Structures are given as C-alpha cells and as structure tokens.
C-alpha cells in the first residue's frame, strides 16, 4: 500500500513537473509552423528522458550520491568545471524564462505589463524556497500542475485528424524551411532533455531518502511520470497544429498561444491557459533555482538540503537567493519568449557534457554495486550521448540561422 502511494505521488509529480515554459513554447511553435511533423521529436525526447531519469534515480538510491556528486568524484574537478559553468549560466537563463512565464501568465489575465509582476513572482519563488521544505515544493506545486491536463482535454475536444497525428510519430524530413524545422527539433530536445531535470531528479531521490528497495518504484515513476507529462506536451503541439497552423499564425508571443485553449473553451480557455502557464513555470522556477544551489553545493561538498533551515546551510541558501535575483534582473533586458527559445537551444549544447558521464558512472561498481547497467542499457545511453553530441554541435548555428 505504501509503495502504491509512493508510486502514485511520484507519477503525479512527474506529470505536474514535466511541463515548463520551454516545453510549452517549443511545442506550440512547432505545431503552428509544421503541423504534426515534429511529433516524433517529442517522443524521441521523452524516451531519452525516461532512460536518463531512471538511471539518475537508480544512482541516487544505491549510492546516495547525486549526479553532480558522481560527475565530480568520478571524472575530477577539471572535467566537472565544464558542465558546472555551462549548466550554471544556462540555468540562470532558464530561471529567468520560468519567472517570466509566471509574470506573463498574470499579464494575460490582467492586461498589466508583465514587468510589474516580475519582482512579485521572484519574491514568491524565493519565499517558498526560504520557508518551505522539499516535500511541499515537490508535491504541492506538482499536484497543482495537474491543471495542465486541460491541454489533453482540449486536444480531444478539437477532434484532430488522428490518422495524421499517428503519422506524425514517424520521423520525416521537412519539405520546406529546413533550417527552422531542425532548429525547432533541437529546441524541443533541449526543452525535454533538460540537464537541470536530471540532477534535480537524483537529488530529489536523496531528499526523499530512497534506498535500493525503491529501485522498482523509481522505474515506474520515471516511465509513468515522464510519459504522462509528455502526453501534455504532445497535446499542446496538436492544438497548435489544429488551431494556429491552418490560420497561418506563428507563435511569436504568448498572446498567440492562448488561442489553443480559447477556441475549445471560450473565456475559460484564457484562465486555464494562464493558470497552466503560471503554475507550470512557478514549479519549474522552484526546481531550477534549487538545482542551481544543489549543483554548486554538491560540486564543492557543502552542506545542502531543502529540508534544512537556511541557518543550517547558509551557502546553499545564498546560492538560490542570488540565482532568483539574477534571474529576475535578466527579464528587464530580455523578452521572456526569446529567452526561452535561446535557453532551450543552449540546454542542448551542454547536455552531452552531463549525459556522457553516465556511461562511466552507471558501470562503476563502487557506486552501483549489483545495480550497474546491463549491456542494453549501455547501448541505449551511448545512443543518447551520440544524439546529444550531434544536437549540441548544430544547436548554435541553427539558433543563429533559424531562431
């Protein structure tokens, strides 16, 4: 019974925590621009994320070390400094995009410029980090994130051509705008295979005190939670393809994305879109700012835990405080949607430096003991590493040419 509750909560966390501003923006952009053609990229990204999060959860359950811990300890500080600096800078951009997403959600409903809401949203994020615990943050916000299931309901309501949707899961080459097609594909992969998600998942397993007995639970949560979350991203793409594409509307602002819910739901659609965007981004802002502090503390061996009071881990608390301040400040120099697409492309650039070490760590007896990867697992991880490297090399040129 206890395991069922754990699995249920974990899957719910996966659904509510999967979606963030990057996934919303990139899938809406993709659906409006290319119909159902990029559905296969969402499925590819989901498969990669399931594989990687399962491994990160297993690493944490067996060794009680997070991914950042293991990368530093196994590959040394000079190697660790590369993904650390890269992830730190990119996560600041992602954090800015997430705080911006919450502010934009409030702007959509009130009409007041989103910049007025930025300090309020940043204060709310910081306040929950300062006073809350990991359980409140992980479960509370993610359960609220279930509101994003409205996208799935709306997609069914709009009666898309399901045969065409099914054909979209098969990879295809673009018939036009090749650069933009591949730029969006890279951005979707960058949004789904977020480096911050991997370390946050592993650290969460340590915060929740997982042990070897939780390995089967980890498999169900990684697979179920991420799959259900991916269904929401797919629904957004389908909605954009059905509502925006035929009208020739590209998504250059969040105002244009709102239509995907107002067409099926009328006025309620505006409130549901704003609530979904706001809650998903708020949850992600908490995760990203916490992850910045986790990676720094774990990299340098400081005391850390969101379940401790700030007095007990002052350096950890100082990092997430500074991160929220910088993230909020960035919004006064950059547009939220443009910050989102830029940060998703940069996510793709740093991903291989974080994914590659898994090939080494998941086969290390000192960390995984009898729970090391089987041969198939290693082949799959090697495949993901190869995809990540190819995507990383093309991400920046595509951003320049197609972004």
């Amino acid at each position, binding site marked *: 019974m206890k395991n069922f509750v754990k699995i249920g909560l974990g899957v719910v966390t996966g659904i509510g925590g999967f979606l963030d501003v990057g996934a919303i923006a990139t899938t809406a952009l993709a659906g409006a621009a290319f119909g159902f053609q990029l559905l296969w990229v969402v499925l590819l990204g989901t498969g990669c994320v399931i594989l990687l999060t399962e491994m990160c959860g297993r690493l944490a359950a067996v060794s009680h070390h997070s991914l950042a811990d293991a990368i*530093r*300890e196994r590959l*040394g*500080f000079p190697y660790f400094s590369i993904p650390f600096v890269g992830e730190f800078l990119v996560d600041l951009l992602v954090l800015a995009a997430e705080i911006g997403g919450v502010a934009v959600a409030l702007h959509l409903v009130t009409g007041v410029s989103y910049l007025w809401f930025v300090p309020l949203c940043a204060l709310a994020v910081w306040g929950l980090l*300062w*006073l*809350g615990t990991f359980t409140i943050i992980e479960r509370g916000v993610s359960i609220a994130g279930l509101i994003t299931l409205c996208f799935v309901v709306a997609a069914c309501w709009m009666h898309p051509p399901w045969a065409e949707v099914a054909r979209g899961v098969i990879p295809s080459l673009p018939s036009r705008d090749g650069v933009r097609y591949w730029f969006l594909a890279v951005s979707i992969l960058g949004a789904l295979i977020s480096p911050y998600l991997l370390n946050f998942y592993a650290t969460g397993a340590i915060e929740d005190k997982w042990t070897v007995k939780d390995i089967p639970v980890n498999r169900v949560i990684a697979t179920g939670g991420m799959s259900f979350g991916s269904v929401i991203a797919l629904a957004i793409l389908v909605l954009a393809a059905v509502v925006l594409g035929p009208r020739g509307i590209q998504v250059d602002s969040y105002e244009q994305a709102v239509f995907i819910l107002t067409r099926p739901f009328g006025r309620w659609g505006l409130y549901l879109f704003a609530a979904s965007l706001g809650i998903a981004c708020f949850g992600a802002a908490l995760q990203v700012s916490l992850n910045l502090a986790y990676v720094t503390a774990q990299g340098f*061996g400081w005391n*850390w835990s969101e379940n401790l009071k700030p007095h007990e881990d002052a350096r950890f608390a100082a990092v997430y405080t500074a991160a929220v301040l910088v993230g909020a400040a960035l919004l006064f120099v950059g547009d939220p949607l443009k910050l989102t697409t830029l940060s998703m492309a940069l996510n793709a650039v740093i991903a291989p430096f974080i994914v590659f070490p898994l090939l080494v760590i998941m086969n290390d007896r000192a960390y995984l003991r009898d729970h090391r990867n089987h041969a198939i697992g290693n082949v799959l991880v090697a495949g993901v590493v190869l995809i990540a490297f190819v995507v990383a090399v093309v991400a920046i040129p595509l951003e320049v040419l197609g972004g």
Partner: protein
Amino acid sequence: MDDALPLVRDVLDKQIFDAHDEKLGKVDGIVLTLRANRPPRVAAIETDVKTAWGRVHPALPRWIERVQRWLHAEGIAPTRIPFEQVVRTGIDVQVDIDGKRTNAYVWETWLKQRFVDRIPGGNRGVR
C-alpha cells in the same frame, strides 16, 4: 593502511565527512611532502575553492583572491587535514576530526551572520 591506496581514484575529489558525519567539503587537493633521497610522503588532504579552480587554470586562483580581497575576506587559508586522520576512503572520505574545529566553515559562518540570520525565517520556517 598497508595496501596500496589509489589516491586519484579513491581520495581526490571525494566528499569529506568529519567524525560527526557532517560534510566538510571535497578533497580539492592532496599535499605531498618531498623528502631528499626518499619517496614523497602524503602529508594532508586539502579542501579550498582556490585549490580546485587552480586545477582548471593557474590564473583562476588569482581572480578568486581578488574577489576575496574585495569582500575583505583575504587570508583564509585552505583547510588542510593531516593524512593520518583519514580513516576511510572509497566513494567518500571520512576523517577523524570535528569539522567545526577547522576553518572549513568560515564562509558558511560569514554568510549566516551577515545575511541569513538577518532575514526573517532564516532560522524558522515549517521544518
């Protein structure tokens, strides 16, 4: 310890835990004593942000020192723990000292006093 100890694999970059199982930092460096006509001796393990970044590029510790001078925090020496006090190695390193008696928590204490304890909720909250 009579067997050979792979210093890089089992000591360098590992998490240090003190006698009370508190985190003390990572092993950022290993200090050797060079002796005339004899093999070097492992003298201590060292945890310090300048030591870690110095392994990436030799100019970086000088930049860190500039920042520390700006914060009026210069002169904080690396935390060195004599190797005799290392009791366990592996994926973690355990040392037989009380971490609070070292200078490993200087920054932690500075931040607590200057920042955390001055903000409401720093020592309270729903823990």
